[in-house]
């Protein structure tokens, strides 16, 4: 693993490029190819499934973990025995419903009813405003990747579908720390109307009170979503005109890209990642993926 790793800042630098250790990627990849003919229809399909597990085997040097990202935003931590670049942050356990609720919880200084309630991971009775109580809150590596094409032709018509998908992985929707940011006067997402207003109007359990001024924008599991999805990436439909109709060999076609996305993920693109390398699984709402339609004709003179 050749990565930039942290070094003591007394050297004048905070990172250096080094061979830091070993990672094992193990898994299986299945490819199924199938062709058949049903009546006059020729069908072709190809299914590709990838299952991969990665595990950090060894980290050299004094550090027992490689950290990327920041306290506010997406934290990634790579530790021996765990997959690389796990999402890291406070575990959000809900929203404080009342003063009573705040009092009965480990000390979270500055919390009021309506603030996010964090998990006291180190069990010292205090949720401190630093990384001490942060834990793994998500795995940015899909358990399974899918690629599926389905194509065929009948008479002069032909068609081709391409699906891609990824399953069981997490994405830190960092953008919501801004677009669901209640600690001031901003434009926010519409779901902000379901924020906590009072003990009697607790909202949807995901929007903090607009009176909060701390415990909101820190990396926490509130912003982590399952990003499993299947995407209909492309569809092509074509028709080749019979040669007895027209003198030239002609094929008319229609194709569409990124037609349908099947997912519960709230963002526009569950397949993004900012940061790269080992700072992955972070969605800052990149430019949306366009849906494109193409009509065309291929004519050979």
């Amino acid at each position, binding site marked *: 693993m050749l990565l930039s790793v*942290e*070094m*003591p*800042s*007394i*050297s*004048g*630098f*905070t990172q*250096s490029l*080094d061979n830091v250790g070993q990672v094992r990627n193990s898994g299986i990849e299945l490819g199924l190819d199938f062709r058949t003919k049903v009546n006059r229809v020729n069908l072709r399909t190809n299914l590709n499934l990838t299952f991969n597990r990665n595990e950090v085997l060894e980290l050299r*040097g*004094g*550090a027992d*973990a490689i*950290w990327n990202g*920041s*306290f*506010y935003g997406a934290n990634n931590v790579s530790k021996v025995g765990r997959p690389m670049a796990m999402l890291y942050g406070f575990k959000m356990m809900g929203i404080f419903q009342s003063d009573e609720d705040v009092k009965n919880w480990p000390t979270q*200084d*500055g919390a*009021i009813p309506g603030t996010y309630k964090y998990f006291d991971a180190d069990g010292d009775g205090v949720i*401190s*405003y*630093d*990384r*001490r109580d942060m834990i793994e809150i998500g795995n940015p590596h899909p358990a399974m990747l899918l690629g599926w094409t389905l194509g065929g032709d009948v008479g002069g018509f032909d068609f081709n579908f391409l699906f891609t998908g990824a399953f069981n992985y997490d994405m830190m929707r960092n953008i919501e720390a801004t677009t669901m*940011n209640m*600690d*001031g*006067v*901003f434009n926010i997402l519409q779901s902000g109307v379901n924020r906590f207003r009072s003990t009697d109007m607790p909202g949807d359990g995901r929007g903090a009170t607009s*009176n*909060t*001024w*701390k415990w*909101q*924008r820190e990396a926490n599991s509130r912003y982590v979503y399952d990003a499993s999805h299947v995407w209909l990436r492309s569809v092509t439909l074509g028709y080749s005109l019979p040669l007895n109709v027209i003198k030239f060999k002609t094929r008319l076609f229609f194709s569409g890209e990124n037609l349908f996305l099947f997912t519960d993920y709230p963002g526009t693109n569950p397949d993004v990642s900012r940061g790269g390398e080992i700072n992955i699984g972070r969605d800052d709402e990149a430019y949306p993926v366009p849906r494109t339609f193409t009509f065309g004709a291929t004519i050979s003179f």
Partner: protein
Amino acid sequence: MRPILFQELSHLEQLSVFKKRNMKKILIYFQIFIVAVGLGSCAEDFLDKTDPTALVSDTFYGTDREVTQAVTGIYGMLRGYFNNHWQFTEFITDNTSLHFNVGNRGQGPALEAIEYWQYNAGTPNFASLYNNTYNILVNINTTLEKLKTSTASQVIKDRSEGELKVIRAYLYFDLVRLFGDVIIVTEPINTPADAFQLQRSPSEAVYSLVLADLSDAINLLPVNYSANEVGRITKGVALAMHGRVRLDRKEYAEAVTSLKQVLTLGYGLLPNYADVFKPENKNHKESIWDVQYQGENLFGVNSSFIYTFAPLASQGAVIKFPGQDGGGWNIPSKEIISLYEAGDDRKSVSLKEGYTNNSGQLVPVPFINKYNNPHSIRGVTNDNWPIIRYSDVLLMLSEAINETSGPTSEAYEYLNSVRVRATLAPLNGLDKSQFRIAVLKERRIELAFENHRWFDLKRTLSASEIKNLLNAYGKKEREDPTTSRGGIPFSQEDYTFEEYQVLFPIPADQIRINPATTQNPGY
């Protein structure tokens, strides 16, 4: 079929055709090359080329011009250092508070943690301070190392060594007072592994390095510079710094010796306190060492302090650009405002107790006025940051003399010259401890918002005295905050100072990266 043109081939095809056509030539060149290497005794140099278009540290530092450029670059790094220095030396104390930003919390809690003494080893501003300091130190060390073998003139080499050693001493003096024991680096670090070997040294060793660097610098530096080099570090800076360090260590006789030499170098008080902070007067005879900033252009070497210090939502009423707001940080506390004596010239120069907004109403949010000067480009101010002023030297002298011999007429003379300039009546008839208190208060007012307060508290009070003083101030702020908090209550732990907090934490990241690094007690 027409022949295919070379240009029509793919890149790979072109390559193979080229090889075929030119193989003979390539072979010949290769043979010539072998012969050349075989013949020349300079064969190794022949292969050892540096990129002529890049500046490389191995070959730089050869001429006067290059050495001066390197040192000037380090001066430039001080701008970044001082842009945030107020957080750790002024904001943290009873001199200033903050304008609570209800409308946009942003990453405010990390900086508010310093004002409310809620900081811990994870507070990011300490990590920036620590990393930034060592980043400058590494540049200093590299340049000092290169000076040893540089072919530049002796005059420039001596002067540069003096300048760099004063800056190094300044940074270590800050480090040791803020963090206590720290890692000493005085030579270039060549591999990451070396950086893991270094451990914190006792603060005594840090002080020894600081004093040794300053002693060297006193002998190496000129008393002044030609007009186009004004602003560089002089012998006066080294002497005043030496006095400051000695005073901090309560070595009063040594402090007096160094500080008195500064008196002979031609410095003096400006007649009018307001003139001290006007950018058009910068590097005047009262200024011993300023961080040099330059505005009125877009070279990126400007300051912008008022943009941090002006009240929130002041909408151009403080910073004279349409709609311009301030950051609302480092707001003068009610306590310091109440300390100015009637008729003190300095009050209206140093701070304003409020401003008139665009609707003509008075908004009672105070702000620091020392760095609030007219400028023509939005965001680009021309204010220097004073590190050592002559009035600071006079007050240090009166403090040191009082500690050695009591309030002598000489001690009064220095203290009163500062007071008289501020149009206040001279003091007299104080006993030693009253005089000590008077000097401290004079420093608080004269040098307000110039990043002295935290160090003055630490120099003159014990940890438990600091705790009591700050908690008393904190109690007042909780009951009657300097600025409105828009209905948001204080956290339970806000404004609770513990003794261990007189030393900042070693940043948690540094201990995580190198677990052999120790932490200060309490964190």
